[in-house]
């Protein structure tokens, strides 16, 4: 299967480390990836205009269909909005017809041939746990990882093209275990990071992230692993600010899933964009015995 990489708006600008590690990982597993001329998935528009949000998603789905690919996204918000549109368009004939008459003006047509996949599912199901396991050359033994799934990869589950249980998901845990690290339980694992509120009510958003970080800290993790650029922004990029605001010290490194997998299969830190991770990874890398990051880029 060929996939169109759907980066969304945030990852290619603010979390390029996530994008880079994704590309390197997919390349190393010889996945057939192309870049298409996608626009915003529509998620940020939904509160103001549901129709526009829906048409943006439909437009992107139809563009993938035109190119004969599935969609592979690395952002939970994109995954959520594209999955929802895909579900509704496949489910409702009259909605599909009326939508097609609108996106027809863009030279596009939706007939329902595209699947919307999240990187995590492509890694777990398409590439497969066995193939990854066979490539693990630098097992992350003794490393304690807090698996943070975020929200829109899981909920509302009715729209999602996966078999994940939204209250008790397993895919991230199983990918952590493949690297020989330990996925640790922590308080508040299903709580939202607040990322969607960062531009609306910053105080509230940061308080929500603080809540999650407190729960994670209690479980003495070596790192958080996440699958969403917004969660990454909140926990990695904003961690210092949260510490300052609340007079707390967390110092919990945050890795994106492909960065963790990359380390376990022996990729070097530059290939994985680790120099862009905000919370210091020095201690973490020393613990896994990887080359240190100390070299300035």
């Amino acid at each position: 299967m060929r996939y169109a990489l759907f980066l969304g708006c945030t990852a290619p600008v603010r979390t390029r480390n996530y994008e880079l590690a994704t590309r390197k990982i997919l390349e190393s597993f010889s996945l057939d990836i192309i870049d298409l001329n996608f626009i915003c998935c529509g998620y940020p528009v939904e509160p103001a205009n549901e129709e526009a949000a829906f048409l943006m998603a439909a437009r992107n789905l139809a563009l993938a269909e035109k190119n004969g690919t599935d969609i592979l996204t690395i952002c939970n918000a994109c995954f959520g909005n594209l999955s929802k549109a895909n579900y509704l368009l496949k489910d409702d004939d009259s909605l599909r017809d009326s939508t097609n008459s609108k996106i027809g003006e863009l030279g596009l047509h939706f007939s329902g041939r595209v699947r919307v996949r999240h990187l995590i599912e492509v890694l777990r199901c398409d590439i497969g746990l066995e193939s990854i396991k066979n490539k693990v050359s630098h097992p992350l033994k003794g490393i304690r990882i807090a698996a943070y799934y975020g929200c829109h990869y899981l909920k509302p589950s009715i729209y999602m093209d996966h078999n994940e249980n939204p209250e008790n998901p397993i895919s991230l845990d199983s990918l952590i275990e493949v690297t020989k690290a330990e996925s640790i339980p922590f308080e508040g694992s299903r709580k939202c990071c607040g990322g969607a509120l960062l531009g609306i009510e910053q105080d509230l958003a940061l308080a929500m992230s603080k809540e999650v970080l407190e729960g994670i800290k209690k479980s003495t993790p070596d790192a958080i692993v996440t699958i969403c650029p917004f969660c990454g922004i909140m926990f990695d990029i904003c961690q210092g600010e949260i510490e300052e605001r609340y007079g707390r010290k967390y110092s919990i490194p945050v890795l994106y899933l492909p960065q963790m997998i990359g380390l376990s299969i022996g990729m070097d830190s530059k290939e994985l964009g680790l120099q862009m991770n905000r919370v210091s990874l020095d201690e973490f890398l020393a613990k896994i015995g990887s080359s240190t990051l100390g070299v300035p880029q």
Partner: protein
Amino acid sequence: MAENKRVIDVDNLDQGLVKELSEERRESRGFLTCIQCGTCVSSCPVTYIDPEFNPRRIVRMASLGMRDELVSKGVIWLCSTCNTCVERCPQDAMKGFFSSIRNIATQGGYLHPTFEKILEILEEHGRIYEIDEFLNLERSEMGLPEIREDASDMKKIFEIAEVDELLLEKRSREI
């Protein structure tokens, strides 16, 4: 705690709001089936931090038709869209609710400034972050491919969904 007492002005209830949410909008059709059980509140990560945001109360207010109280105040914009209430609601009443009520507020002239900004950027760039030469240079130094902005489809979609008119209206009001 007099300031916490909420008086419902029965002369100012608007059944039109109930109709809009339950009949005219595809996604929020189910909201009237709410049984006020509170699963949403006990699941809500926002309520946990700020009890002023109370989805059960907001749904009840909407079902009574309290349009003015809802659309003119900031509280409906505090939902973080985590969808936990949508997932857990035993009545399936929460699906699309916050998105619909925000759309109704927007149409009534209460477009939140954050979303106004987002719409303006999208209209021009097709993405919520502009891609400029400097960014592409940084990307190429990391070995990432160039991204070219193309907002032409975005503009057409905004015309079809009348987002362009929404923005024009907003601008004309501000002048």
